[in-house]
């Protein structure tokens, strides 16, 4: 067992444990921090799959953007009410049953299905090739993503900018 294998399994276990912690924790803020831990370990797993660009994007956008947004949302909603951040559980039985069923279906199809074992001899994709692909064969989704980001930005700003007014 080489060092790389140990590090790989460490990140797998970290991602799984922090996701389980999100499910089990009752505090929203702790859940957001555990989400950050889970996202960063998944980014490390992306590096192990020769997807460095995706890993860097994940760290910048998720770790730097989405988690901060969620933490801001938690702070703003808790400030309005002044209540503690405890969250109740509901539908525990049906939720657990559905999750276990889904896990069983997916893992069953992974083991019995036609999924080939993942090769490890893949070359790391150079960033230059990703940039060329983004500008040539993926240019339409790239532009659409830009328009979508602009729309989401303006929509979120408009939604929250009338918070001071009582009627809307």
């Amino acid at each position, binding site marked *: 067992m080489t060092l790389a294998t140990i590090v790989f399994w460490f990140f*797998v276990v970290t991602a799984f444990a922090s*996701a*389980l912690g*999100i*499910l089990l924790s009752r505090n*929203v803020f702790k*859940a957001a921090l555990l*989400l950050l831990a*889970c*996202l960063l370990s*998944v980014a490390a797993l*992306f590096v192990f*799959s020769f997807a460095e*660009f*995706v890993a860097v994007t994940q760290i910048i*956008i*998720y770790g730097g*953007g*989405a988690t901060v*947004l*969620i933490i*801001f*949302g938690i702070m*703003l*909603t808790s400030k309005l*009410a002044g209540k503690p951040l405890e*969250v*109740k559980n*509901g*539908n*525990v039985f*049906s*939720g657990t049953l*559905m*999750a*276990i069923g*889904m*896990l069983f279906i*997916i*893992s069953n199809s*992974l083991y019995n299905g036609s999924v*080939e074992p*993942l*090769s*490890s*001899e*893949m070359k790391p*994709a150079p960033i230059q*090739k*990703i940039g060329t692909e*983004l500008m040539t064969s993926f240019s339409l989704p790239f532009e659409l*993503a830009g328009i*979508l*980001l602009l729309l*989401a930005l303006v*929509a*979120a*700003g408009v*939604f929250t900018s009338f*918070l001071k007014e009582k009627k809307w």
Partner: protein
Amino acid sequence: MLLLGAALFSIGLAVIIIKKNTIMVLVGIELMLNASNLNLVAFNRLHPDNLDGQMFSVFVIIVAVCETAVGLAIVLRTYHYYQTSVPEEVNELKG
């Protein structure tokens, strides 16, 4: 790695169903999207010549962050109006 993706997806589904808070539902959606990203990157290793899986996961990340921003704006808005963030208690469209 694919099994981890399946496990993350199931945990995200359980979080969405079980937790009674809109922000926790958003966190569960993030977990599920992350699991799908993990699968996309892992299956891209089967076809090393093209980068479709990696590009697709980048676009999934972009759409996920848009969804989080708009979702949190809606959560703030409904919280201000209904003084709650439990999805079941928001039961009228116009008060």
